[in-house]
């Protein structure tokens, strides 16, 4: 059995991987300044250096999912998407490059569809209920399954068995991980998130996205990501297999937590949101294929 302690050194070694683009460090530190101090021209310049990131920014800025703006230049894409969204795209690109094609046990396109779907649903839900930072919700949604990448890399074969068991028994992946590995992608994702110095609330969303009741802090963000992850998993944006589940969202503790702080949620038309998620599916697939779809098995 692989333990969380055994994979900790492997997780730490991920930082120095050559596949992480050279622009990440300068761009990342640039983006972490307060928004009003960020030098827009410098961001445009750095994004333009990396063709994959530049292409992804353009593709996203032109997608109906983000408003479809007929954006043709990197500069207008950066403006259209906003500085915070660039950070999420940047991280997505880095993460996409750290897993070699032969390690994946979940189809990488399926993984990114779930991650992007969860990012979109989290930010949409955030806006609908009036949560103050929809971009953070987007970023947390995109990164919530970071630990799946960690487990794919750090314990490839054991994790492959977890995925296979989950697929065969129609059960949630984290339940198989706990049984087979002794830990889940929530914990391994948290370790990498800490190592990469993500903000504490994003780390909380990664750690507790399968058990929102355990979050001591950032409970609203954790709850948003928890519910968005569930909604994606019941709308064909899961991990590529049938999970036998029936989810009464309004009865979930995460829902009740959010309703306490955002009463509009109680009046939300959930069936309509669900059908909107279905409607966005084709575009999510198209964006993922265009942006991440380079190593599909």
């Amino acid at each position, binding site marked *: 059995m692989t333990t969380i302690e055994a994979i900790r050194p492997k997780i730490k070694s991920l930082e120095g991987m050559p596949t992480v683009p050279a622009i990440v460090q300068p761009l990342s530190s640039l983006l972490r300044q307060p928004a009003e101090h960020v030098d827009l021209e410098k961001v445009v310049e750095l994004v333009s250096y990396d063709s994959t990131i530049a292409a992804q920014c353009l593709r996203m800025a032109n997608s*109906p999912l983000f408003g479809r703006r007929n954006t043709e230049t990197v500069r207008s894409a950066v403006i259209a998407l906003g500085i915070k969204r660039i950070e999420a795209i940047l991280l997505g690109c880095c993460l996409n490059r750290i897993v070699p094609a032969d390690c994946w046990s979940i189809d990488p396109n399926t993984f990114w569809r779930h991650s992007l779907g969860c990012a979109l649903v989290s930010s949409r839900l955030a806006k609908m209920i009036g949560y103050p930072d929809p971009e953070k919700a987007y970023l947390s949604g995109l990164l919530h399954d970071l630990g799946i990448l960690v487990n794919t890399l750090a314990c490839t074969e054991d994790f492959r068995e977890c995925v296979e068991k989950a697929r065969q028994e129609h059960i949630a992946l984290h339940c198989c991980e706990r049984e087979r590995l002794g830990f889940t992608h929530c914990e391994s994702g948290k370790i990498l998130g800490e190592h990469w110095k993500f903000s504490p609330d994003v780390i909380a969303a990664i750690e507790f996205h399968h058990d929102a009741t355990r979050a001591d802090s950032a409970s609203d963000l954790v709850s948003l990501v928890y519910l968005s992850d569930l909604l994606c998993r019941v709308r064909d944006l899961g991990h590529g297999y049938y999970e036998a589940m*029936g989810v*009464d969202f*309004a009865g979930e503790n995460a829902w009740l937590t959010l309703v306490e702080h955002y009463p509009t949620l109680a009046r939300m038309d959930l069936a309509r949101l669900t059908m909107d998620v279905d*409607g*966005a599916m084709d575009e999510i697939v198209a964006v993922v294929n265009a942006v991440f779809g380079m190593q599909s098995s």
Partner: protein
Amino acid sequence: MATVGTKPARSEDLDDPAYLRIRDVIYQISGIYQPEEKLYLLASRCSRRMSALHVASPTEYLEHLTVRGNREAELRLLLNEITIGETYMFRSPQQLDALRNVVLPQILQAKTALGFKRLHIWSAGCSTGEEPYTLAMFLLEEKQRLLAGCSFDVLATDLNDNSLSAARAGIYGEYSLRSTTEPLRRKYFKPAGEKQQQANEELKSIIRFDRVNLNDDSRMTFLKGMDVIFCCNVLIYFDLASKRKVMQHFYANLLPGGYLFLGHAESLYQVDDRFHLVHFPGAIGYWKPPVGYAPGDEP
């Protein structure tokens, strides 16, 4: 909702905000929802009605649906266009997956604990019978597995006598059977003329057909003890007051822990708030919680 459809001739028409307003009118009145990314399907359905009416723009057509004297009739005709082609067997495999993997195991566990072994499923508004025959095949196929030791029946009701006669006869062409696998066709159907198949006696024996008006309080009151109700694309034609009344009946007709399934683009938002909306992979069900259930409990 059928996913086939021709896109309107001019894609720029889709940017016409009138289509969003038509979408919202349909949703408000019928409960059928079309996400923005699939507006081309709605536009295609509207274009057929617009041609029939010689209407040039979606804005003008919106008037036909909202302010003209014939608006109710026109809305009904548009709903017919929207739901056309929805009636064939195994139309909603995700609903059957939900039944097999979640709903029936949950219901059977609760029933068995109380010593009950009979399962009642109701296809309300069964039209020409594709849905109840699908349910009957599903149940018979699960007889040795999930339903071992249980008995079961399907009540199939409709208001229309012609539809009911066709349903009782159980004769179907290729369109109705297009998603029915060859082994199931061989097992539950027999040839009935050129390119047609008729449901066999085993299949028919599971189903009881009856004429029921869902607006008829005296009939509805006595259809108690249901475990699962299917009512797909029927309530879309009802006004809000009638919908609410039918939902009250369905709630009373279901046993605690029972489920109601609607058409997959239908919503009960603001129609009834006693049912709990439960999401299954690819399907939505409306759940009548058992007595004593509190939010936060496991269903």
